């Protein structure tokens, strides 16, 4: 290693460790609601030709889901920890880490469509349908047959900076997205477009906004600024407080 980059590595190699000391009062939260400004293009209807059960279920293209009052569902909002750094984890999250994350094949759709997992958690993949599926989770190099009314469990051990696709190869119209981080400060927007991340270490953090149709949600106006070219914004989390971003408007043209 020493000669590879002809680096002068004499003496102590200074490795950045972020072990900020903290106590119970040093945690804050963030919340908001993401809405679409305008009318996004309708996602192309799914071509479903295999399995009468799936055809009858008429699954829809979930790549852009807009709910009541223009609420945008399935946006990934998460704290971005730069490569090589660590963040303090609130002890509140310890019990949640032991719980499995469930992904259900139901009605020839994945539920949820946007999945969050922490490294170390177990992903429990169920099939509630009367037909067989397979679940291909690329980020985990996992692809297994999941027969009707059964499940398969897989340890989540590899992640990435961005969400990646989950697919069923028997039914290629089935898609979902998974974000794997080694911290719990992640959220997806629900039917009403809202998200909330609790118990974040107080201080300035970079938050990432990402949607499967829009990719990085860039130049989106937030309280006191906007997201950058990579859909990120630095926000200040105050101890004991909740930073309420209110309504965040994503222009319809950002969702292709």
């Amino acid at each position, binding site marked *: *290693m020493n000669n590879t980059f002809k680096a002068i590595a004499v003496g102590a*190699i200074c490795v950045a460790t972020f072990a900020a000391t903290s106590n119970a009062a040093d945690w804050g939260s963030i919340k908001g609601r993401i809405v679409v400004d305008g009318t996004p293009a309708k996602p192309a209807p799914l071509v479903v030709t*295999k399995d009468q059960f799936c055809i009858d279920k008429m699954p829809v293209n979930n790549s852009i889901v807009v709910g009541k009052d223009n609420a945008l569902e399935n946006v990934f909002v998460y704290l971005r920890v730069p490569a090589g750094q660590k963040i303090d984890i609130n002890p509140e999250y310890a019990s949640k880490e032991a719980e499995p994350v469930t992904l259900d094949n139901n009605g020839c759709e994945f539920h949820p469509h946007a999945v969050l997992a922490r490294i170390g958690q177990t992903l429990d993949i169920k099939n509630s349908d*009367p037909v*067989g599926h*397979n679940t291909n989770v690329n980020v985990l*190099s*996992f*692809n297994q047959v999941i027969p009707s009314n059964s499940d398969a469990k897989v340890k989540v051990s590899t992640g990435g900076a961005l969400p990646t696709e989950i697919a069923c190869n028997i039914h290629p119209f089935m898609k979902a997205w998974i974000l794997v981080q080694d911290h719990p400060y992640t959220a997806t927007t629900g039917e009403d477009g809202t998200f909330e991340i609790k118990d974040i270490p107080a201080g300035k953090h970079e938050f990432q906004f990402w949607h499967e149709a829009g990719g990085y949600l*860039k130049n989106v106006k937030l309280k006191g600024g906007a997201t950058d070219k990579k859909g990120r914004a630095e926000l200040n989390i105050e101890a004991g407080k909740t930073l309420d971003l209110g309504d965040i408007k994503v222009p319809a043209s950002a969702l292709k």
Partner: protein
Amino acid sequence: MRALALVTATAALVGCGKSDPPPFRLNMTNVVAKQIAPEHQQAIANILGAMFGTPDEPIALKETGLDQKKLDMAAGPVWSDKVGAKHGLYRRHCVHCHGISGDGRGPTAAVLNPYPRDYRMGVFKFKSTYTAAEPTNLDLTKTLHEGIPGTAMPSFALLPPDEVAALVEYVKYLSIRGQMERLLEDHASVELNAGDKFDPANDPAVQKLVMQDMLGPIMESWNGAKEQVINPEDASIPPDNRPAKELEASVKAGRELFYGTRANCVKCHGPTALGDGQQDDYDVWNKAINDFFKATDDKIGQIASLKTDLAKAQGDDATQIRQQIVDAQKEFNERHALLSSLLLPRNAIPRNLREGVFRGGRRPIDVFWRISSGIPGTPMPASGPAGEGAQGTLTQKEIWQIVDYVHSLPFEPASLPQKRPINASEVSTGE
């Protein structure tokens, strides 16, 4: 005139003798798709150069555990020394399909189906290990030894063992290099902003990131492959000399699984086992190219809708949208410039099991491994466990039963060459 011709001819001859050594090239579809800044492309090339050297002078980095002697034998131009030992084996035997960078884009790639393997994802289809694991040395040696039946990949069984070993080492070298390249691309794309330095030589934190956080897990996976081999329990393995009745019962049970909803083989291999089920999907290599084409198309629509927004916007908003249009147009142009160099993506077509041609080998254990861990990189899922101690969908006994059924398929009457139906009028004229 004549003198000029002579000069040209001489120049051409000199040119032949002194052609530049071929370089490793970056994966340009990734560079464009991930929008990596030119200075970071250079940084990635520099880091890869420092870690892995060049196609003529490869480096067996200590942390990779690769063997420098083997790499030297496989790399570089083709020549033989005085005692007849061969050098430049990769360029002698492999490069015309697999390419200098191991990108599967040698000059013959375009006329082959399937396309030659691109090693740079570190994903290999035919191996003895669990789905997520790398292949063992023995797996790669077997592929070189047997070739891949039904494809353009020939057998190299006639090469001396040390030459095969050198090529296996070089394939691993190109894979590890490609996996590193991918991680460096991701890092540049996600973590770096224009103007940021990316130089491990002058930054210990970056050096740690590259050597430990990136190369570390790649090497763990390669070095741990031998512990990831799927060894079926002795009790599950059917004996070679089974009574015909026993084999028949096993084939029947395998048939039921094949068409049943638990193993669900029928969904892709089809009700006739001709591979005529699900044919709309892609393997990971073709999907990457397909996604590139699709995203390039999407840019056109995106630019159009931004222009609609621009017509309604004013002030700062308009300035911002105008900038977004410029950025999107630039990306579209970069994408478009690459399109003609790409091979058109092909769907993953499930194997026709009635031909008796098994790409990963036809021994019972080969077919067992295909069913148990699936075929990595392709739509074919695993029916066995994802790792030691995990829960598989099928038991080992059931997988052996499917192996028996798959082995029986080419010999079913329906698989044999069909006679032309006898036409009564032809028969009568014949007499």
